[in-house]
């Protein structure tokens, strides 16, 4: 088949069943866009390439298939960087296709030349340049295979403009270009399963910590079954939220720096941690030397390099979470797992009761925790939440109960402000029938606010709930607790008026003054046909509590600000 390189890319994307691309065109991608023009792949025109990448990421996390974004060479490509880094830290499969200056000009500091392969190598699973049009089918196949297998992650494909224009005869079927990459079966090794079962059967106080890997491998069902079989409570990392419905009896909520009291206490008291698809990040463990000192650890992860990276484990299981859990489950059923009610579960329940009053809303003004509860009660279980970064994100994580996997989408590893709105747009494109709510901060929202234009142009009714505390709240909280209230440059002021701003985009803005007006605005937004932005006033002194100070053990929790 004779095609231009640009058409070959589009053909390859169709073969990968790509339905939508998020991007912004430019000089080096004009041929690619010309080929897109006559294809039936949907293109969502972002207003900033960072957002195009976050949109692809949000799309990928909701749909469980790679999201695709594109940018032109130079500034377009460098604008993608934050979005790619977010996807890398959270192991989200996105494909970034960038234009590049023509081959003859590479290395000459040509107009809009940037070494994007070099720049993104440390933040991608793989980044490479296509050096002839004949490679394109294999290159795109390779990109999708890399992004979506083993531990998932972003892949960048850089295509010089003259490669897009080159006419070539193409060879199909396409082949994986990289021989050294092995797609692992993900099956657990029987020996490690046996050892794990031994530990599980002899444990009196087992605790499961579920991470983003459970969601990435669609292992929720197996996880819940596993927890029920061994009667172990389940705490999650930030990325693991939604892996077990948070109203499930065995759910403990989030663990870590801003973990729920009962979850962190359970880590202290357990005698066996079964960590599934999580990487013992510092925000989860607190001071490592003090983490789970009295417990053994079983670590299930698809990435062998995660085993032993941060913490010593007793039984490593290098496997896909779904496969490992289902093997464990069937073995447990075979041996007739003994557990029903136990002392441990009673203890867990009493911990939940003990801490319940600590979360009670005190003082004047709208309380984030209460708002999160109202939101949960008003929207369907399948609704998707995205977040900004900062207090807003932690309030959502602590108090919004995620009930299904792939419904809590947040920048966990990188913590990139500005993620919420574009991720919500990507989520809505992935799942137009489900309500999408972006719980955001006033600082975070402004970092990518321009993409309200995208939501309006595309007719995507995403709802942003801006918790307007008029400060860079999370930084201010640290200043309050650890810098003697020296609030260096964290005051945003009452700017902008988000309602007016939203209206300028042709979307709907709502000022919230009370819990009642919040509730009715949320209910009304479920039927919205245009984006909605709610401005919710929060006191600048409101804190995210509990909190484990950085570098401290999970025990050293602060409950009062």
């Amino acid at each position: 088949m004779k095609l231009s390189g640009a058409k070959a890319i589009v053909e390859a994307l169709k073969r990968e069943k790509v339905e939508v691309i998020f991007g912004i065109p430019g000089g080096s991608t004009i041929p690619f866009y010309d080929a897109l023009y006559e294809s039936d792949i949907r293109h969502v025109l972002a207003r900033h390439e960072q957002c195009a990448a976050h949109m692809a990421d949000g799309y990928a996390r909701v749909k469980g298939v790679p999201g695709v974004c594109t940018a032109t060479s130079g500034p377009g490509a460098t604008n993608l960087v934050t979005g790619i880094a977010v996807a890398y830290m959270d192991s989200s499969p996105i494909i970034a296709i960038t234009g590049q200056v023509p081959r003859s000009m590479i290395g000459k500091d040509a107009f809009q030349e940037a070494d994007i392969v070099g720049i993104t190598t440390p933040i991608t699973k793989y980044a490479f340049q296509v050096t002839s049009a004949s490679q394109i089918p294999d290159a795109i196949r390779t990109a999708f295979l890399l992004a979506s297998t083993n531990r998932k992650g972003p892949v960048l494909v850089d295509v010089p403009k003259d490669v897009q224009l080159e006419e070539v005869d193409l060879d199909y079927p396409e082949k994986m270009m990289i021989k050294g990459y092995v797609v692992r079966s993900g099956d657990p090794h029987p020996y490690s399963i046996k050892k794990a079962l031994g530990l599980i059967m002899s444990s009196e106080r087992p605790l499961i910590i579920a991470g983003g890997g459970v969601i990435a491998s669609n292992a929720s069902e197996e996880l819940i079954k596993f927890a029920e079989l061994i009667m172990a409570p389940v705490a999650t990392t930030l990325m693991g939220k939604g892996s077990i419905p948070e109203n499930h009896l065995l759910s403990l909520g989030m663990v870590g720096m801003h973990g729920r009291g009962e979850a962190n206490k359970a880590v202290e008291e357990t005698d066996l941690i079964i960590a599934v698809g999580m990487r013992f990040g510092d925000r989860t463990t607190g001071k490592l030397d003090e983490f789970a000192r009295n417990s053994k650890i079983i670590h299930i992860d698809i990435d062998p390099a995660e085993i032993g990276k941060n913490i010593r484990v007793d039984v490593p299981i290098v496997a896909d979470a779904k496969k490992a859990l289902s093997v464990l489950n069937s073995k447990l059923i075979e041996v007739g797992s003994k557990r029903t009610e136990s002392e441990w579960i009673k203890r867990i329940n009493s911990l939940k009761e003990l801490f319940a009053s600590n979360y009670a809303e005190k003082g004047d003004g709208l309380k984030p925790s209460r708002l999160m509860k109202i939101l949960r009660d008003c929207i369907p279980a399948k609704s998707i939440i995205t977040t900004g970064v900062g207090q807003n994100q932690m309030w959502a994580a602590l108090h919004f109960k995620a009930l299904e996997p792939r419904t809590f989408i947040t920048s966990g590893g990188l913590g990139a402000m500005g993620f919420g709105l574009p991720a919500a747009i990507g989520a809505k494109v992935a799942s137009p029938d489900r309500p999408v709510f972006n719980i955001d901060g006033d600082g975070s929202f402004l970092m990518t606010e321009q993409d309200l234009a995208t939501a309006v142009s595309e007719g995507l009714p995403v709802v942003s709930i801006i918790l307007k505390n008029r400060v860079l709240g999370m930084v201010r909280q640290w200043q309050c607790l650890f810098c003697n209230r020296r609030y260096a440059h964290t005051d945003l002021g009452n700017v902008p008026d988000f309602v007016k701003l939203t209206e300028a985009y042709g979307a709907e803005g709502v000022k919230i003054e009370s819990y009642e007006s919040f509730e009715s605005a949320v209910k009304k937004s479920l039927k919205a046909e245009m984006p909605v932005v709610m401005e919710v006033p929060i006191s600048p002194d409101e804190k995210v509590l509990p909190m484990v100070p950085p570098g401290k053990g999970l025990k050293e929790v602060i409950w009062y600000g």
Partner: protein
Amino acid sequence: MHIIAALVEDRPGVMFKVTSLIRRRGFNIDTITVGSTEKEGVSRITMTVRGDESVVEQLVKQLSKIPDIMKISELKPSDSVYRELAMIKVSAPDPAKRSDILNYITIFRGRVIDASKDSLTIEMVGSPKKINAFLDLMKGFGIVELARTGIVALSRGSKSTSE
């Protein structure tokens, strides 16, 4: 000292990917070399690292995630042969000292590969230990210039690293 050998696909940018990862994850490598192998399209990277077992294990695991790396393993010094080449230019204007140097070269089984009125350039092949010992001796005479290749290594016996 730990020796790590990697077989990689010979593609532009592979060395960059390897060094980028080493830098990013904060590993310290002493030497790194790359060259062709018996198979077309496959290169061999040999590096030496200092650090405890867990550091080396983590480095190998992280490197093995680079898709271009086809095979990577640690070569235990006891189960492998390894060599380094050094070229040493030594100042030798004084005939008496010159003959001392030539004696040392014979003892260490090196070779003189260039000479001038004032200097000798020596080729020395061996383990890093041997080369270091030789360099210590040469310091007294004045080393004008030194170039070392870093280690290359093969496992002992008939097996190949790629198996």
